[in-house]
């Protein structure tokens, strides 16, 4: 059963979420503060955690900082931000700190569960392979120095490994599967985030922004993931 870490300072919300998630078969670890959560992740129990649900408004270290520290430690742990502040600015700040998804409080149990499932699914292997790239072997493609291994789910640039969190990796895999083709934000939302939330294109924009910071030579003038104004994004042409 997947283990989820709930980082939430309000005891009632934390207990409610724990109750619901346990009833639906999740293993649950809880932390009331960011510091506690980081300590837990560093410990033995932290090794079992497969996903973190992170409240933004925490006493002491806030959610943004906790997210940055989690990202600095591990690239692959999916983080869902749980925010009581639904303003665009807070959501964008949270996403830029490295969250894979955000949920605005109050959230119903089925929605939270669905988002957790989707986030976990993103961390699973990705089977498809696109045309138009030079195939090294069955699952590896080389795009002008950017080598994407779809079986091992690794990305290397000029031989150097580029660690990518699951969401960013999914975005890259999705776009590079068909180089040159424009995917709208809605298409990316449906295929990567696995949900039909209308207009949550901030998720896509934030993930693309973080991805560019890692794989592009000059993130401000992207070569691999290009913006098609008014439509969406496109991989290449290189």
């Amino acid at each position, binding site marked *: 059963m997947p283990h989820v870490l709930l980082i939430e300072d309000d005891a009632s919300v934390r207990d*409610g979420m724990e109750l619901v998630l346990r009833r639906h078969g999740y293993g649950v670890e809880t932390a009331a503060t960011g510091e506690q959560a980081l300590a837990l992740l560093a410990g033995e129990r932290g090794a079992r955690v497969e996903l973190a649900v992170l409240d933004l408004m925490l006493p002491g270290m806030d959610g943004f900082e906790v997210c940055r520290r989690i990202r600095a430690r591990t690239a692959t742990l999916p983080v869902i931000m749980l925010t009581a502040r639904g303003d665009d600015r807070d959501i964008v700040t949270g996403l830029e700190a490295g969250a894979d998804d955000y949920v*605005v*409080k109050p959230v*119903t*149990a089925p929605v939270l569960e669905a988002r957790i499932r989707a986030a976990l699914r993103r961390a699973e292997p990705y089977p498809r392979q696109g045309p138009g790239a030079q195939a090294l072997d069955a699952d590896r493609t080389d795009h002008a120095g950017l080598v994407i291994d779809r079986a091992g789910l690794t990305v290397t640039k000029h031989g150097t490994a580029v660690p990518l969190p699951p969401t960013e990796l999914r975005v890259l895999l999705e776009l590079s599967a068909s180089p040159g083709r424009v995917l709208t934000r*809605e298409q990316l939302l449906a295929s990567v985030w696995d949900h039909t939330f*209308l207009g949550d294109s901030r998720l896509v924009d934030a993930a693309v922004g973080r991805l560019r910071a890692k794989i592009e030579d000059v993130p401000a003038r992207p070569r691999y993931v290009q913006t098609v104004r008014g439509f969406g994004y496109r991989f290449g042409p290189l």
Partner: protein
Amino acid sequence: MRVRLVVTFVLVALVSAVTATALAYRDARTAVLQRTQNTAVNDLRERVAAVAPGLDLPPDQQSLSRFAAKVSEGLGARVVVVRHQDLSAVSDAYADTEGRITPELRAAVRAGDGARFQRVQWRGDPYLVVGTPVTYADGDRRTSGLEVFVITDLRAERDDTAALLDSVRTGTVPVVVLAALLALLAAGTVLRPVRKLGRATRELAAGDLGSRVAVRGHDELAELARTFNETADALQASDAELRAQEAKARRFVADVSHELRTPLAAMTMVATVLEEDADQLPPDAAHAARTVGAETARLSRLVEDLMEISRFDAGAVRLNASVTDLADTVRASLALRGWTDRVTLELREDVRAVVDRRRVDVIVANLVGNALRHGAPPVTVTLAAPGGDRVTLEVADGGPGLPPEARERVFDRFYKADAARTRSTTGGGDQGGGGPGEDGSLGQDGFGQDGFGQGSGLGMAIALENARLHGGTIEVGQRPQGGAVFTLRLPLRHLEEEGDG
């Protein structure tokens, strides 16, 4: 104002100058002529008195000529004419006297007993002709029948007065120019503060409440400026106060909504557990559990809507627009809420507009949700592009429609339409086919779970705000067959206007 002032000034100056000079000219001319006349009359009288005793009466032509010459001697270069009955003598033989000594004057001299004079024009020049009868000096003043006329040239006097007129005339122009200059100066000093005051007033009217004018001096204008500043101060102060109160009220709504979210988050979570187990509970407890779930969902929706409306009030909303397929968006909105089977769609395909997809979704959800909740089937959604740069989305239902007074207020916050339009009182959960989230749809900001039940009372206001944010409108009307129809009109904006994320 400036022109009027200058014209008035110049007119006043002109009238004064003309009147003054006219009066002065008349007086001067009269004085000059009077003096000449008096001199002429006196000179003649004295001369005749001095010369007449030496003349024997009746005279002959020769003595008459001598007499004329004698009179003329003492009078300078004037022509003297002496008459006695049919005889006449002239001091200057070449002068034409007949044209200058008029019959009326001769008649007057003959009839009267004193000097008579007359001004005449002869060959274009003015002359003064003075005539006097010569009387005996023996007391009874009998006329001797001798008449003496002297013709005085008035050209010098005429030229003098003409010169006076000329100098006055040439002097008027500088006076008028000076008056105009003075008028401009006065207009400047008077009008500049007035104009400044006017500009300040316009700025104030345009919303710049910091607009003030400099107060200079202690005249009426300064008083006006001071009053203006005081008014502006008062206006600014009350405006600041209002703004502060408004901001406080907005912050309060946002804070309250925000604070409500945490307990709501806990309640929403555990309500699911209660509802999941409701089937195993005694009927009363099951009902209670379901009610708690439904009411928690309703409370959540209300809080979400309150937060959304306070964001609109605070001006904190931003359009996140991109090219969007509208038919697609409408279908997705309905599918997300499980309404696809309950709504008839007439969607024109391939209508693409630059809109914020999430906000269009909110509008569609509110309009359709409202029709399903308060109207009656069939609910029809029609998407059309009636040409031009607009696109319309109509949501119509088969219910009783809205009375006119409700139509005006349907977009007001917390407005509850007439009870007749509320289809059912059995509560939302029953009609909606499930409590929060039972349909498993992935909800969004309070709309996803349950489109039925009681609305927050803010939905239509939020829909209208979202339409306005796009530069669009929502109108409510009546179908011929009775039902209500809400029409959303959105401009088809160009790609350049889009805010690319």
